[in-house]
């Protein structure tokens, strides 16, 4: 892959709740290169969406804030930038696609209006007519059939898959260097999901944009991403290339996740189940956050936070945070 475009270094994001300050993203570091797709995998409460919101600096106000760390876009730190400065980044440098296409478009404007608005911000002063032509091109690029007519449609006149394509058109309107896609296909049907993933791949091939793909679906990661990070309880527990992590899952949580997904290739009698519940947000956790559910947990796991170390595949880029990677119990 190409050179690093976005680098997140030791990011800590907290929520100031009435019950206390709670870390939701805890010392998270990763990077993504030109033309690369990075998957962020985790379940609800793992901090994957909060990581995305931190990069865009659109954390829930007033409770969310970045406590420490750096977010380097081509070497420039985004943390501490004013809202006005971030306005230049959002859409133009980093685009975002959210989960639910039904709520991410404004129902009282035509989709053309919304694509044109995104184009206008990036090309101020351009004639409306030119922008409209550009918008039609953008809609064609995301495979909206009959774009000349559909540009005047309102969101409610479109299906979910079509709307998500429009959201994609808005996201790429500013030719961003990085696209953050937060579960963009969760609300879509499987056949439409396939079309959409193909679309993202095509956009990437053409423009070389880096994609950060947030999902809980390991099937998508296996088929779309080059590298992945697995998050649990606000921390990255494992990271590496897709081949290394799927081939030699080193954190017990990654291993369990891979085992618990029902296979479409064969019929199983029983699924592997992870006991217990995902961790709640608490401020004073000691030890590994997966320890209460981990079949391999040792005493040290409950008392001391594990450090990141080389993972089982032996590859340089494959890292995991586990005290008991050799599974001695």
């Amino acid at each position: 892959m190409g050179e690093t475009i976005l680098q997140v270094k030791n990011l800590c994001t907290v929520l100031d709740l009435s019950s206390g300050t709670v870390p939701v993203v805890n010392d998270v570091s990763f990077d993504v290169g030109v033309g690369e797709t990075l998957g962020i995998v985790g379940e609800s409460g793992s901090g994957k969406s909060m990581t995305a919101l931190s990069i865009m600096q659109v954390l829930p106000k007033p409770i969310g804030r970045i406590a420490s760390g750096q977010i380097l876009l081509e070497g420039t730190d985004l943390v501490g930038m004013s809202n006005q400065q971030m306005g230049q980044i959002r859409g133009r440098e980093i685009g975002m696609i959210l989960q639910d296409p039904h709520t991410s478009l404004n129902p009282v404007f035509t989709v053309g209006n919304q694509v044109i608005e995104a184009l206008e911000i990036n090309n101020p002063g351009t004639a409306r007519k030119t922008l409209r032509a550009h918008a039609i091109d953008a809609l064609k690029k995301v495979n909206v059939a009959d774009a000349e007519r559909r540009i005047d449609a309102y969101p409610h006149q479109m299906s979910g898959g079509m709307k998500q394509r429009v959201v994609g058109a808005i996201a790429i309107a500013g030719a961003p260097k990085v696209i953050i896609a937060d579960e963009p296909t969760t609300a879509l049907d499987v056949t439409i999901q396939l079309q959409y993933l193909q679309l993202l791949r095509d956009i990437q091939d053409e423009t070389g944009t880096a994609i950060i793909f947030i999902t809980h679906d390991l099937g998508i990661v296996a088929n779309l991403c080059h590298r992945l990070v697995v998050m649990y309880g606000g921390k990255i527990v494992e990271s590496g290339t897709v081949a290394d992590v799927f081939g030699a899952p080193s954190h017990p949580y990654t291993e369990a996740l891979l085992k618990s997904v029902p296979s479409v290739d064969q019929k199983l009698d029983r699924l592997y189940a992870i006991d217990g519940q995902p961790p709640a947000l608490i401020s004073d956790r000691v030890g590994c956050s997966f320890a209460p559910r981990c079949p391999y947990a040792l005493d040290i796991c409950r008392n001391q936070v594990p450090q990141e170390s080389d993972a089982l595949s032996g590859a340089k880029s494959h890292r995991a945070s586990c005290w008991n990677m050799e599974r001695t119990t």
Partner: protein
Amino acid sequence: MMAPPILEVSDLTRHFTIPHGLLGRQEHIVRAVDKVGFSLEHGQTLALVGESGCGKTTLARMLLKLLTPTSGTVKIEGKDVGTMSKAEIRQFRTNVQAVFQDPWASLSPRMRVFDIVAETLVINDNLTKGELTRRVDEALIAVGLRPDQAKNYPHEFSGGQRQRVAIASAIIAKPKLIILDEPVSALDVSIRSQIMNLFKDLQDDVGCSYVIVAHDLGTTRFMADRIAVMYLGKLVEIGPTDDMFDAPCHPYTQALLSAALPLRVGKAHEAIVLRGEVPSPVNPPTGCPFHPRCQSVLGEICKTSPPAPKELGSQNHIMSCHIDV
């Protein structure tokens, strides 16, 4: 004589009319479910799959007698649901239960777990307080909750636990058939396998049958003995799970099942990417409703004549398509 199957559906049809035009004087007809027929044996699981808008949920609601069919019949153990007497309907309401997708919406926030779980029994059986408590405790234990949690309210539980409460209330009356409408899609990945194993265990213990509506194909393969694929209100293929996954016959089934992304890295995934989207059910295509998107369309015949269902090898595997297999 063999006992009648737990569920027998024949020519089941449900049309909805949508007001249209000035002052809504004209009407459009949506054929949400159109001449669907299948049967389900005791202790078996049938999965209904298809894209949104294909009529899965409408069909499930008719099985639950929450919607009246426009025509056709639903028979439970040989008894027509449409012509039941009041007493029989009561019996039906205990015999057929449902678990819905969203455990945040399906449990009353103002009722304690005990009352939620016991409700079916309170309405239908005349039990003593002690007997009722014993049955509720049994149901809670069966779904992996503790009897002392019966005094709690739904908001005190996590999503997975709430779904367990919903399942407890579905199984307490020892139903013969449970309709599961996307029972795990609202749950976290690590919780889904717990709940799916629970469904399997309950089936082994009490021998109930399931009709499961699911869009996740891995879930379907794990849960179902047979799969019914729907497209625009029509049943396009039905057959045993392994046959359907290993050798799907209908072009739509092939495309739908190939859209599942396997957990394999390296080898490129060969999927059939369908053109376009599901057409509007208000104005479905002529002939075979799938022909505008079909990757193996034959020609004029697909556009003009709707394909009739035909048996493939065994009577268990039926599809509606003009192609020869």
